[in-house]
């Protein structure tokens, strides 16, 4: 190896940074898995406003109107998915069925999130039978 190539050799700091980033990625994934357990309520927000709060256990399809147009959210078998959306890239639809976490459609400003905080998330419901 010439001295010129040696100058570009990976340094100790490079390795530390790589290890740190890998560690950060793995721990944050674990953190999310732990912190976001499967929730009981599906919340649908449009442009920052809560439009629906529905129990995940009851199958239902709802339509919401975002700034770009109509989006369809389906709840089935304790899972949620974005069925249709007017955005360009359709990331939200490709995300498929989720049991926890959230589906976020940035262009249409629709956020579908699953949460399960007791005593919250019952707004907009007439009643729940269990």
């Amino acid at each position: 190896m010439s001295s010129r190539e040696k100058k570009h050799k990976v340094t100790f700091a490079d390795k530390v940074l790589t290890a740190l980033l890998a560690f950060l990625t793995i721990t944050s994934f674990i953190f999310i898995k732990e912190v976001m357990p499967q929730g009981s309520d599906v919340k649908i927000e449009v442009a920052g406003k809560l439009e629906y709060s529905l129990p995940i256990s009851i199958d239902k399809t709802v339509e919401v109107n975002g700034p770009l147009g109509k989006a369809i959210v389906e709840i089935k078998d304790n899972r949620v998915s974005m069925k249709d959306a007017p955005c360009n890239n359709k990331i939200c639809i490709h995300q498929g069925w989720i049991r926890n976490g959230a589906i976020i459609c940035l262009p249409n400003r629709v956020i579908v999130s699953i949460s399960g905080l007791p005593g919250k998330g019952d707004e907009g419901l007439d009643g729940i039978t269990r």
Partner: protein
Amino acid sequence: MELQDKYRIALLSSYALALQGLEALIPSPVPWLKPGLSNIITLITLYLYGLRPALMVTLVRVLLGSLLLGTFLGPAFFLSLAGGVTSTLAMGAVFTFFPRLFSLFGLSLTGALFHNIAQLFVAYLLFVQRIEAFVLVAPVLIGAGTLTGAINGIAARYLVVEIEKAGDS
């Protein structure tokens, strides 16, 4: 600015633009996960010619790139601008103050990390003011950024070695 610098910036910007255009053609399951190939050019510009030319190349790339891809002044433009400028400044700061600390590999990782941090921040301001959403996306971005940053860093290293070889002979 010297005339020679202008030529260099023009040439390097066009390389960066070409890489960005190429990247837009690569099908990806998630559109905002991109390899950021044009960062290779930013990196070698920074390494060989300094921060100011690197910043110029980034600005030209973001501006012309958005005009070519039709995203000028759209949300994607601001995300790209914030990411590009922040990562260039971050890499420039590290390279200026600690020139021996990182190789091109580490610089590339720094750039990728700050690119993603800036994009998350702008996305937060532009779209959703909800911290949970970003907690969810951040690990994916950091992980992907580390991977693509590593690949870009290796590519930049090869390029710089070859350029220096060519400069010697």
